[in-house]
């Protein structure tokens, strides 16, 4: 069927048909193909990007590239100062931050409560002691301040409250979960950690789409150490930011080889992802593919109709071509090439718009989903696969109607008989 001669003649016919067809019809078909391409790539890309945005945010603003955390049967990381020394010696490390964590409660209305029957306005929170400068270098925490100011190393009895602990930002009241009312920078609250109470001032409110930030209370590490009586400098989390291009797995393995694994969990940001996150990525990708396949079917039908109408209206000329001895395969190939042309143009425009407009734009202006800043995930390999899929579908959708018409009796086609 696909002899060189037939392809050559098919190309000759297709080129002339496209060149002399109505420009607006051609533009419209290419427009449909372009949107089909976007539907194929962008819908899946945004659905995956919705989760990927959350994953990236957790990496950038919480775990960083490598995270060292407590073993399940320990309350803190033993020999933390030595571990920090090892980490700081690694040339691939850009910056590092250590965190002290302790569970506790915070109370807002302890000053205004007049009797014991009045319910205290409390919230359960994870108290996090940080070196404000080091933390900011690793996680850029200060960018999430929505009210008040970020901590500095000299702050005394001052805290940053995660927005999900403040009613104003999370106005829900369900059994077992409560938030603090009437909170603003400058307001005093009471902390209770293992029975030790401390009155602190809210210096700022911090809001991010990473729960580990928005559900915590941050204070200067020395302050929390004094509250929990941790004088050995053993911490609970160490987040390590690597220099650009460094593979986190390599650093994880180096740290493990240094024996850190015996006293702490050493994980890359991907290791630290819960399994359900990975399942969600797969689920959203599947969902995206399902939605895209509907688009693919619509595009196929569109091309089918376009080529069918084109072939039907040109039935007489197809008959003439056959009559003067043009091989029917060459005629079919001409329609295949026309379909290919439409799909190719749509895909090329789609690639330009995707990689030079949409992806850079969404990267700088992420889509504001409630739980993540959605990005557009469109790896080149996946995009090429989808283009291939679009081409094949379009070619089949163009070939079938052409074949239906070309197979009709030559004389009937010339004379317009049914």
């Amino acid at each position, binding site marked *: 069927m696909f002899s060189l001669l037939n392809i050559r003649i098919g190309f*000759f016919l297709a080129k002339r048909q496209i060149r*002399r067809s109505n420009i607006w019809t051609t533009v419209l078909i290419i427009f449909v193909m372009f949107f089909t391409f976007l539907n194929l790539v962008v819908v899946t890309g945004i659905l995956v990007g919705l989760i990927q945005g959350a994953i990236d945010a957790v990496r950038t603003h919480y775990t960083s590239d490598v995270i060292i955390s407590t073993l399940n049967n320990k309350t803190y990381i033993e020999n933390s100062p030595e571990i920090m020394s090892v980490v700081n010696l690694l040339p691939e490390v850009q910056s590092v931050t250590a965190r002290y964590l302790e569970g506790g409660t915070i109370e807002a209305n302890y000053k205004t409560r007049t009797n014991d029957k009045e319910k205290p306005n409390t919230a359960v929170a994870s108290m996090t002691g940080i070196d404000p400068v080091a933390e900011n270098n690793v996680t850029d925490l200060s960018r999430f301040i929505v009210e008040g100011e970020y901590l500095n190393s000299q702050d005394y009895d001052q805290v940053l409250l995660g927005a999900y602990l403040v009613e104003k930002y999370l106005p829900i009241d369900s059994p077992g979960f409560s938030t603090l009312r009437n909170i603003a920078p400058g307001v005093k609250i009471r902390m209770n950690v293992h029975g030790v109470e401390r009155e602190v001032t809210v210096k700022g409110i911090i809001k991010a789409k990473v729960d580990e930030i928005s559900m915590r209370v941050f204070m200067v590490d020395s302050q929390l150490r004094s509250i929990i009586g941790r004088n050995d400098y053993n911490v609970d989390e160490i987040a390590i930011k690597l220099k650009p291009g460094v593979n986190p797995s390599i650093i994880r393995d180096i740290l493990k080889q240094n024996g850190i694994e015996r006293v702490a969990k050493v994980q890359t940001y991907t290791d630290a992802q819960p399994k359900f996150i990975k399942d969600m990525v797969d689920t959203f990708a599947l969902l995206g593919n399902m939605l895209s396949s509907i688009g693919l079917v619509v595009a196929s039908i569109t091309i089918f109709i376009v080529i069918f109408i084109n072939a039907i209206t040109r039935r007489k000329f197809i008959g*003439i071509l056959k*009559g*003067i*001895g*043009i091989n029917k395969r060459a005629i079919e190939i001409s329609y295949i090439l026309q379909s290919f042309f439409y799909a190719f143009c749509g895909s090329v425009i789609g690639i330009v718009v995707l990689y030079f407009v949409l992806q850079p734009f969404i990267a700088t202006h992420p889509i504001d989903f409630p739980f993540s800043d959605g990005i557009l995930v469109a790896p080149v390999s996946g995009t090429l696969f989808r283009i291939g899929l679009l081409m094949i579908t379009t070619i089949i959708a163009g070939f079938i109607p052409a074949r239906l018409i070309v197979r009709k009796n*030559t004389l009937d086609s010339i004379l317009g008989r049914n």
Partner: protein
Amino acid sequence: MIEVKNLKKSFKDGESITEVLKGINFVVKSGEFIAIMGRSGAGKSTFLYQMSLLDEPTEGDIFIDKKNMNLLTVDEKTYFRLSQLGYVFQDYALLPEMNALENVALPLLMQDMSEEKAYKEATEALIKVGLEKRLHNLPSQLSGGEQQRVSIARAIAHEPQILFADEPTANLDNESSRIIMDIFKELHSGGQTIIMITHEVEYSKFAERIIHLDDGRITKDQSMKK
């Protein structure tokens, strides 16, 4: 060159069957110019379509150069039409998206001729019909007579054994018709076998043999040779 034996063609329309050709026997010699005449519905066009392999007879055989055309496959018939036969249709049957040169070159390209050679021979064919100044015009930019001359150029460019013409002057004014018939006359004088359907007695006189068809049968086979 062509031998038609007991050629029958009938059309089925539901239960009824219409017999259009009722057993025609006919021989065409190489180099003959034959005009087929007859009233409307006599079966002239159907006869031409069978001989030119555009349609399948219901019964009977057509031999071209002693080769039984009924034995050819669809693809072989297509190739035979491409390489051995030429067609001039009543309504010119040009491809609207191609200019005159491309219309003529297309069958040559299909014969695996190089583009350069195909365009050269197409140009020569168009010059032969007096259209050297209209090579790059689309059919829509040509008059009816010019379109028919492009159609003739396309039919003769590959030097076919037999040229079939189905009322080539039917849609043309007198002047254009005369030009077309002069071209046929010249082709014939060069040895081209031509089988032409015409209604017009005036143009049938260009032929050396006139076949009269009536009710699906040849009623008269008249030689015009002097």
